[in-house]
């Protein structure tokens, strides 16, 4: 006998915005955020809970930058034709009314402790990001991260405005870890607007205005760097007074780097350990040893306790009210069926053992 099951949803899915969309009236949210807020159907593997809401400004004209690895790049055909509802970091980023997102957050933010408002490259992004953050400051209890596009921030006073708008964390997406890689993927070499030295200037303003370690730097592993270059960048950022948050490059269709393979798992694992040691002031890059290919062969200290604990392999990001990372970005780098470079939740014994073994992958002694 055929059975019809009437079902109810405790929260009704919200229709995505249709028609022209521009921030601050509309914003994009990660699929994970939309699912957690019940705006989009879906569920998470492994009982993962999202701890941070990622929002992204958008404009009909799209992002004005041309980063060679980024799904938002203005030359990506899909983006040129339709500046919304596209994929970014591999998955859909649905567009909603900002008001609808705020309503859902006020009703029930679940496990989410923090919102991250990300600019894109557009002259309107500075004011619009501040407008969105003010709404969250005034209407929610979430911590607020400003993920700024350094190129649109032109003075220390603008950084002060971001603080006044409600941000308690200030993050700068460098992504690339050397001036040459930066220029080739984001700057002149990519016909893009971003400049390495300006990003450093803005980061230093951020440390001055927000305070030491109230700032963060996004770094993407797999843009062509060696492990030594990445570890040296992490140390330089840390010595400047900022944390680092790691991401893994995965090729996106339609981008300049669409045919480039991700960095090997071992590369990412070793950089995760180096980052953890440096950011927790357990080790320094000067104490690490490298082979001729720039791979880390010795971390300069006993890492066995880190491997036994597993936190070192968890997603890195801004902290929540409880002091733990609130930006856990579940399945943000790779599909849920793939080996996870960033673990969004504490690792079980099996995952810890696998991650420890991966630390040795592709390593030439």
């Amino acid at each position, binding site marked *: *006998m*055929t*059975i*019809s*099951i*009437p*079902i*109810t*949803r*405790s929260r*009704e*899915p919200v229709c995505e915005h249709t028609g022209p969309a521009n921030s601050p009236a509309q914003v994009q949210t990660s*699929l*994970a955020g939309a*699912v957690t807020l*019940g705006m*989009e*159907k*879906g*569920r*998470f*593997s492994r009982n*993962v809970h999202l701890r941070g809401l990622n929002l992204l400004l958008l404009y009909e004209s799209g992002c004005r930058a041309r980063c060679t690895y980024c799904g938002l790049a203005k030359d990506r055909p899909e983006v040129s034709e339709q500046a919304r509802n596209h994929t970014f970091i591999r*998955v*859909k980023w649905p567009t909603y009314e900002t008001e609808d997102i705020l309503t859902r957050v006020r009703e029930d933010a679940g496990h989410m402790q923090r919102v991250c408002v990300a600019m894109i490259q557009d002259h309107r992004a500075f004011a619009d990001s501040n407008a969105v953050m003010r709404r969250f400051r005034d209407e929610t209890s979430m911590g607020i991260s400003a993920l700024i596009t350094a190129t649109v921030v032109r003075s220390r006073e603008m950084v002060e405005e971001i603080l006044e708008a409600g941000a308690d964390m200030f993050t700068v997406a460098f992504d690339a870890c050397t001036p040459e890689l930066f220029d080739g993927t984001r700057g002149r070499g990519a016909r893009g607007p971003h400049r390495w030295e300006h990003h450093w200037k803005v980061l230093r303003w951020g440390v001055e205005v927000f305070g030491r370690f109230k700032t963060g730097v996004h770094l993407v592993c797999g843009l062509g760097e060696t492990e030594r270059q990445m570890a040296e960048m992490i140390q330089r950022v840390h010595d400047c007074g900022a944390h680092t948050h790691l991401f893994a490059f995965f090729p996106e269709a339609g981008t300049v780097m669409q045919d480039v393979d991700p960095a090997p798992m071992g590369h990412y694992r070793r950089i995760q350990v180096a980052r953890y040691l440096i950011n927790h002031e357990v080790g320094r890059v000067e104490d690490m040893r490298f082979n001729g290919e720039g791979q880390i062969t010795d971390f300069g200290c006993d890492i066995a306790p880190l491997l036994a604990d597993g936190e070192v392999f968890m997603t890195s990001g801004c902290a929540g009210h409880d002091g733990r990372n609130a930006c856990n970005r*579940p*399945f943000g780098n790779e*599909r*849920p*069926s793939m080996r996870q470079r960033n673990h969004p939740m504490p690792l079980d014994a099996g995952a810890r053992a696998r991650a420890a073994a991966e630390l040795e992958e592709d390593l030439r002694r």
Partner: protein
Amino acid sequence: MSTNTLVLPGDLRYDAHHQWARWEDPEWRCGVTAWQAEAAGDMVFIGLPVVGSRVAAGDELGSVESGKWVSSMHAPVGGVVTAVNAALRDDPALVNRSPYDAGWVFTIHPSEELVGLSAEEYLEVIRAEEAADTPRIRERAE
């Protein structure tokens, strides 16, 4: 609150992996139940089995994956995989839009009798799972 209706057709067999199987002599056509598709969200990747592969009942032979979730597919019966739905390679969300028809996943020529669940028995599986977890969707109390 929003309400809609999911269907468990009476002519199908089901299993605890949230799969269905329809007898189309001489083989079983198999897919993902509407309940599973509704809970998972839009599918983004279907790992299809290899045509011609010989499987035992319960063997993992593929996967269904939405943006933030993945689950294995299993052989509901021992036999040989005779066809897969190639349309799912380009349009995996067919599983969401038409779970019992255009969104079928594979066919299998059985070497044994399929032991599956009736729609009524499968409904009990759903109820037990939803009771054990915080439900995103739940059967409406009548």
